[in-house]
Every structure is written in structure tokens, then in C-alpha cells.
């Protein structure tokens, strides 16, 4: 599991006169409720799309439920559910993320510079989640259409019951990758310790190569798409009554 060196707390930036000033919150002093309320109601209206948050110190639910084209930077490590149910916003975590980062995201972009704990991107429908470091178990569990790019490796049961979307893994995967997969597709560059039920390797086609290339580019990574293998569902669990015709 990757480790993370010191994320620096941000000092207020010198302000360029053309741009609206960046808004600064310090969770060592400000209440989480005030930050989230501001992000939900006032940030878009005030034309303050750039928001910096210092000293998150593992707080939960930071910048969750966003629904506007904001650019949020969190300087430090966050707890559970950072950017949960994100829509439209760009949230960058200059540190590590706890369980469920960007869970149920609908659109927008979430970027974790450190590592992500379990259930990263759980049930996300759209948007892009980028994790520079490793992701723990169940990365992309129940995925519903979003894209996830992991610069490092992922833990066991990643893409469990993933229904739609794409997961690009630049490192390795542990056990049971893609167990009970539906239509989501996984691209993995490193070793896979084991595949899950109904998951199988398939040859990469041109569409796959193009997709991986695009996603890596959006994540700021430079690996060659040709180094990736495709994992998808064998679709043998799609119908339970497959053997019901065999009556005796």
C-alpha cells in the first residue's frame, strides 16, 4: 500500500485581479456544516468557483453533495465519503481518502493524489475518479457508469458487481477481480492475483485501446495502452434458470 508524504496546507494565494478570489476554509477552525452549506448554496452564486480547504484532518463527508461547476482543493487527508454523490464539480484531494471517496458520483471529476481506502467510487454513475496511489478493497464496487483510473494497485473484490463503466488499473489487482461483473470493463496493466466469478480476460480491440489511451491522458498518466489487458463478464450468470430445461 502506497504511503503519502506531507501534504502542505495552503496559504491564501496572491489574488490575480481578473479572477474571483479563491475562498478559503480551515476545518481546524470552521465547521464542516458551514463548508458544505456554502458549497451547496452560495459558492456558485457568489461566483467563487475556486475553494481551498485546509486541515481536513480526516474529517468525513467533506465536499459531499456538490452540484455545480466548482473547483475544490482539499489540502490534507480526508475521512469517509469525500465528494460523495458529486455532480459537476472538480474535487482534488491533496492527500489520502478514506472509505467511499466519490461514492455514487454522477458527473464531474474527483482526484485523489494519495491513496484511497475501501469502496472508492462505489456505485458511481458518471464522471471520472482518479487515484494516483493505490486503492484498497472493493474499488469500483457496484459501479454504474463512471470511469475510474488508479495509478497504483487495487485491493481484492475490486469491481465487484460492477454494472457499467470502466476501471483502468495501472498496477496490480488482488483477489476476485470483477466478481459478478455485468457490463463494466476493467483494464489492468499489472498482475491479477485471481479473477472473480464470471470474469475473464478478453483480447483488447481498437476501441479498448482508444478508451484506455483517453482515460490515461485525462488522468495525466503516460503508460502505453498496449500494456493493458481487458477483463469483462463471461455473462454466464445472466440467467438463473439456464439448467431448468433439464427435467427428469
Amino acid at each position, binding site marked *: 500500500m502506497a504511503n503519502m508524504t506531507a501534504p502542505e496546507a495552503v496559504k491564501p494565494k496572491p489574488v490575480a485581479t481578473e479572477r474571483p478570489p479563491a475562498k478559503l476554509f480551515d476545518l481546524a477552525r470552521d465547521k464542516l456544516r458551514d463548508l*458544505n452549506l456554502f458549497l451547496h448554496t452560495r459558492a456558485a452564486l457568489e461566483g467563487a468557483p475556486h475553494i481551498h480547504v485546509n486541515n481536513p484532518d480526516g474529517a*468525513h463527508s467533506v465536499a459531499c453533495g456538490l452540484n455545480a461547476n466548482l473547483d475544490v482543493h482539499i489540502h490534507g487527508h480526508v475521512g469517509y*465519503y469525500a465528494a460523495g454523490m458529486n455532480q459537476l464539480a472538480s474535487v482534488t484531494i491533496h492527500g489520502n481518502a478514506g472509505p467511499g471517496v466519490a461514492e455514487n458520483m454522477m458527473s464531474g471529476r474527483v482526484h485523489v493524489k494519495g491513496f484511497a481506502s475501501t469502496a472508492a467510487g462505489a456505485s458511481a454513475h458518471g464522471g471520472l475518479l482518479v487515484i494516483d496511489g493505490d486503492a484498497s478493497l472493493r474499488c469500483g464496487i457496484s459501479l454504474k457508469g463512471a470511469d475510474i483510473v488508479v495509478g497504483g494497485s487495487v485491493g481484492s473484490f475490486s469491481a465487484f458487481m460492477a454494472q457499467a463503466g470502466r476501471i483502468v488499473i495501472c498496477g496490480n489487482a488482488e483477489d476476485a477481480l470483477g466478481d459478478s461483473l455485468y457490463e463494466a470493463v476493467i483494464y489492468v496493466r499489472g498482475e491479477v492475483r485471481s479473477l472473480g466469478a464470471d470474469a475473464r480476460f478478453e483480447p483488447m480491440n481498437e476501441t479498448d485501446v482508444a478508451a484506455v489511451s483517453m482515460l490515461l491522458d485525462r488522468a495525466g498518466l503516460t503508460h502505453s495502452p498496449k500494456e493493458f489487458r481487458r477483463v469483462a463478464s463471461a455473462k454466464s450468470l445472466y440467467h438463473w434458470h439456464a439448467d431448468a430445461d433439464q427435467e427428469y
Partner: protein
Amino acid sequence: MTTLALEESAGFDRHTIEYIQRAAASGLYEIRGLGAKRRVPGFDDLLFLAASLSRYPLEGYRERCSTKTVLGTRYASRPIELAIPITIAGMSFGALSARVKEALGRAATELGTSTTTGDGGMTSEERNSSKTLVYQCLPSRYGFNPDDVRRADAIEIVIGQGAKPGGGGMLLGQKVNPRVARMRTLPEGVDQRSASRHPDWTGPDDLVIKIKELREITDWQKPIYVKVGATRVFNDVKLAVHAGADVIVVDGMQGGTAATQTVFIEHVGIPTLAALRQAVDALDDLNMRGVVQLVISGGIRSGADVAKALAMGADAVAIGQGVLVALGCNSDTYVSKDRHISAVEDYAKLGTAPGFCHHCHTGRCPVGVTTQDPELELRLDPMVGAKRLKNYLKTVNMELTTIARACGKQVVHHLEKEDLVALTVEAAAMAGIPLAGTSWIPGRTAL
């Protein structure tokens, strides 16, 4: 003259013989809808002690009996205010048709109560027709999205349901039509496999954090319900309180489903009667009665059931199966253009008959309730359905107030467990209510 030797075995009765023969033929477990069919101790085993010389009744009509009910007062800035303590339980679009969801919403709005989405997300039919809508957050998270979270009046985090505690949702391919498939992000026609645990939290210590996340997303305005299927109810209710729930919903084993393994329905979970007693004890133990509200469900059928549930300490009930029966489930006819048309043949095609049908899982509901088939679903007219449901719930509410008045209560929530007695030893023990004519509660008081 010979007499036939027709001695049925209790252990290997016809039902069991058929089960074994079917398993031998197909190699598959049976899947069906509705709830536990076998007899278990329940509300029918309780009776009311009404007015007498020592307790005076209220007059009907003239002397008011209030049914107003408020749920979610603990933390939310906008609790749910209902005119009656009878709500409509969570049932999915997918299990039910969109027209049914509209009928439920219309009836609920007219009566001043709430409906609940199910394991398939929120439809516009339901949101537009139902004035008060509780939005479920389930392990599958099918269709769950922040826009609907913000549109909802309350959020219900579902840990399990009475029909299958420990199991996930189930929808067979024949009901995964294009619209259902789109809402659930599934391929059309595929048998839906469902998760039994939430993807991003496990256990009450993590539920604390999940509840707070949902509060943050909704700016602390909406009540958060937590629903459990009835198993270790005493512990679960205490933990749900600790985790921060505003309202706790407990669903007993008689609770229905549109599809799950029969073996789950009949053999997992405890009766609603026992679950309710445990839930109320847990709230009392934490001194949370009135702070955290309790909704009980699982085989609630009549005003008598509602009255008994309230007397035992519930703040409200949720009805699922009863609502479907009001709409036409197990009726021998459906209504089309103001005429009753026989559906008996269609029941027969399914291998069943009105009064016995539990074939929701097939999607071939003869009366258009639990179907996605475009022809069959027309058999349920939303306006007719809404009217029938309104009639049923009004009747239930009138029965409730009749009983409450007879017990001398001006407010139905003043019904108390001392207004009840039990008919059997099992019911007395499970409900914690004395056997009629005695002061004996098995397991709690001496004989």
C-alpha cells in the same frame, strides 16, 4: 365396502411431497412473491380491553379521536407530518408497474400519508403523485442519485426486509424491461443479482458516518429512517438509535416481497409481534420513546392490527401486501372501462387461482399489479386503483379510531399495551402481554 386409506402425514404432507418432486425435476429452489404464508403468533392472538365501568368510552363522530402522526423529530428540520399513522411500505418500481406507483401516490396524497420507493429508484409517476415520498437507499443502490435524494421528503436506509433478512433484492429477467433496465443500469432481460450488504459501509459504527453524509448532502433537512428485517431486533434497534436514525422501521417475517426464495420467506426472520415487542423494549431501554419514532410492518391488514401495533408502542405502521390486495392482488376480476372482467383463466395459466396466487415473480400478474408487461399493466387503472386504495386505508383508519374510542382515547397514540390481552401462551410470551383473564406473562412474571 372398502374405505380408502387416505392418511396424510404431517411432516410429509402434499405440500412437502410436491416441493421435493419439483426440486427433483428442476434442480432449482422455488422463488415466489408475498410473505410468509404459514401461521405464526400474530396480532390475531391479541384482544383489546375496552371501556367498562372503570374506563369510559368516547362517542363516535362527535368526540374527536386524533390520528395525526409526526415522524422524524430527532434531528431533521423538516419532519414528516402525516394525517394517519398508516403509511405505504417500500415496494420497487420493477416489482410493481409505474401505474401502480401512481395509484399509490394519489391515494396516499388524498389521505395525507406517505409512500416509499423500493429497490429500483424513484419514478416521476410516484414523485409527482405522492405528496410525501420516502426514498430508499439499499445495498444495490439501483437508481440512487442525489437529485432524487434532494427531491425526497425522507431517506430510508434499508439494511434488510422481513421477507429475507440477510438477502438482497431479486428481479427476474422477464421483469427487467427497457425502462426498468435503464433505471437500474442493467442489461434488459437479465436476471438481476443483488448485493446483500451496502457497498460502502458495514456495521453500525460505519452507519453513523453514512447517516451523517446523507444529512450533509441534504443540509440536515430530511429525516433519515433505518429499516431492518426482524432478526436480532432488540440489538439492532439500539444500534440504529446509536447510529443516529430519526425513525426506525422494523419489518417482521410476514412482510412481503415480489420475489425471493421460498425457503427464505418461511424460515428466516421472526414474527412481527415478537419484533415489535423487542423494538419497543430497546427504545425504552435507551429512553428514546418519543425521540426516535418506530414504524412496524409485516402483515399489517386491518384497523385492529394498526390499533394493536400502536398499543404495543409503534408510532406508525407500513402496509405493503394489504395495499396490493386492495388494488386487486388475488381478486378474481380486474376493472376495465367501469366493468369487472374475469381474470380467473389467467390465474389458471400460472397454475394458481384467486386467493392462492403468489406469482409476482413471474411478471404475469393477472390483475396488472406486479407486472411490467405492457398489456397486463393496463388492467390496473391508476384512478380506479387510487380510489380502491383510498377506500381500504380509510376503512382501516376508521377501524383504528373506533377501537381507540372504545378504549377511551382521544388520540390514537394514547393506546397503551395495558389495553391488550393475549389469547395464547406463545403470543403472551412474544408480545410481553398477559394471557387474558390472568396477570401471567410467560418469561416475565410468575404464574
